[in-house]
């Protein structure tokens, strides 16, 4: 592993590159050979039935899940690569942290730090991981919070906010690290229906600003409107990928059609 590889030197290539990724949980193979490139500025939406491996897929990208075989590089930094014997080596802690600082993640259940104010949540990692001084971190946080319309909640605690507001703070917290890529793991699934819109709106604006995003979601309307490309997963493999029009209007795979028929009917 070459630590001197400068991410900027690789800017022309894909931001994320996954090759033949396999992941086992015990005897269960959750990812069965996934290859995927994500370009800078691309909004990739991952859909598929539950248990298809979508969540595991994006969790491998910042090493919340270690892969069993294959390779992943993020901005040219190898997160998991085959070692000399061909088996996937465990990435070093420093490689993992370097990647995580570039990859923001938003979770289904927000995972805000409950003992900290909104402001403290947002500036924690910029100060203690990026080494920003407090004034600069707060200024950055205020800019982000005002953009998502939550500046007036800066001194509130998470439990004083609605679920939708909490999730937007979680997005702000990830953005404060100025990541290259944002991962969204079913971020609206734990929300009351009337709160989903504000979170999707925030994500949509982020996409318009050119953020590279990988979004696992069941919100088909969002997928259709915002995605540059849609990836359909089933049983641990990518069964189909294409533009939203192609996937929604003329899916090639019967399983894609079947899945879409089911979720689109549920929505009614």
């Amino acid at each position: 592993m070459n630590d001197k590889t400068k991410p900027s030197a690789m800017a022309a290539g894909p931001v994320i590159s996954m090759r033949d990724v396999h992941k086992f949980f015990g005897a269960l193979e959750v990812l069965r050979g996934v290859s995927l490139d994500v370009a800078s500025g691309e909004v990739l939406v991952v859909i598929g039935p539950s248990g298809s491996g979508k969540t595991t897929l994006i969790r491998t990208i910042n090493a919340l899940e270690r892969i069993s075989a294959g390779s992943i590089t993020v901005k040219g930094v190898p997160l998991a690569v085959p070692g000399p014997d061909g088996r996937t080596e465990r990435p070093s802690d420093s490689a993992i942290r370097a990647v995580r600082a570039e990859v923001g993640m938003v979770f289904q259940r927000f995972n805000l730090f409950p003992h900290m104010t909104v402001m403290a949540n947002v500036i924690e990692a910029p100060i203690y991981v990026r080494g920003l001084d407090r004034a600069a971190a707060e200024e950055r946080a205020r800019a982000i919070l005002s953009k998502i319309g939550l500046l007036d909640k800066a001194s509130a605690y998470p439990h004083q906010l609605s679920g939708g507001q909490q999730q937007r703070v979680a997005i702000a917290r990830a953005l404060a690290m100025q990541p290259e890529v944002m991962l969204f793991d079913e971020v609206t699934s734990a929300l009351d229906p009337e709160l989903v819109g504000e979170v999707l709106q925030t994500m949509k604006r982020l996409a318009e600003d050119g953020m590279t995003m990988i979004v696992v979601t069941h919100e088909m309307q969002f997928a259709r409107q915002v995605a540059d490309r849609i990836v359909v997963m089933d049983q641990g493999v990518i069964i189909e990928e294409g533009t939203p029009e192609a996937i929604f209007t003329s899916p090639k795979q019967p399983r894609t059609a079947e899945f879409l028929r089911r979720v689109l009917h549920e929505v009614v």
Partner: protein
Amino acid sequence: MSFDRASEWWPSLWAGVQLTVFLTFVSMALALVIGLFLALAQFDPRKRYLSWPARAIVEVIRGTPLLLQLFYIFYVFPSFGLRLDPIAAGIAGLGMNTGAYLSEVYRAGIDAVDKGQWEAADALGMPTGLTFRHIVLPQAFRIIIPPVGNYFISLFKDTALVSTISVSELLFSGELLAAQTFRYVEIYSIIFVMYLAISYPASLGVRWIERRLRFSAR
């Protein structure tokens, strides 16, 4: 029963109370630190060179009587070359003992912090030590404050055991007075009330904190 000479007993009883309170606070401070180290040492089971000794210490302390531990420190350690004066031996014994129990409380508190908190910190690139200090321990502390308060009160009462190694805390002072004056009924009654006069308000205080924490919880 007559308390007419209570004012003569008071100075030595009061000195005993002071020493008891001193022993309680110093032993508790020691126990809080020992408990944290014993808990953190067991956090990563793969680091056996840390987790096994810590586990062994906890099991030995929990598996033997405190009184025996005090005797061991005071009477047996000197033959290994470690000679402690009674107060130091008492603090060491009380602190180690309570620390072992507190380590289990800490462990439970750390475990009780939502796993999502670790994931969120990991995803932000925060190293483990930082996550412990800024994210997990502050939340664990809130969870463990009530049980720690109860151990604190237990410790206050357990300090009476160090009277057996001639530390002149409250009970020991009372024993001396009683032996000199033969006023066992009066003196032990006064001591009884004195322990209660401290521990009961303290336990009310712990309950109050417990209630406050519950209301301000998420």
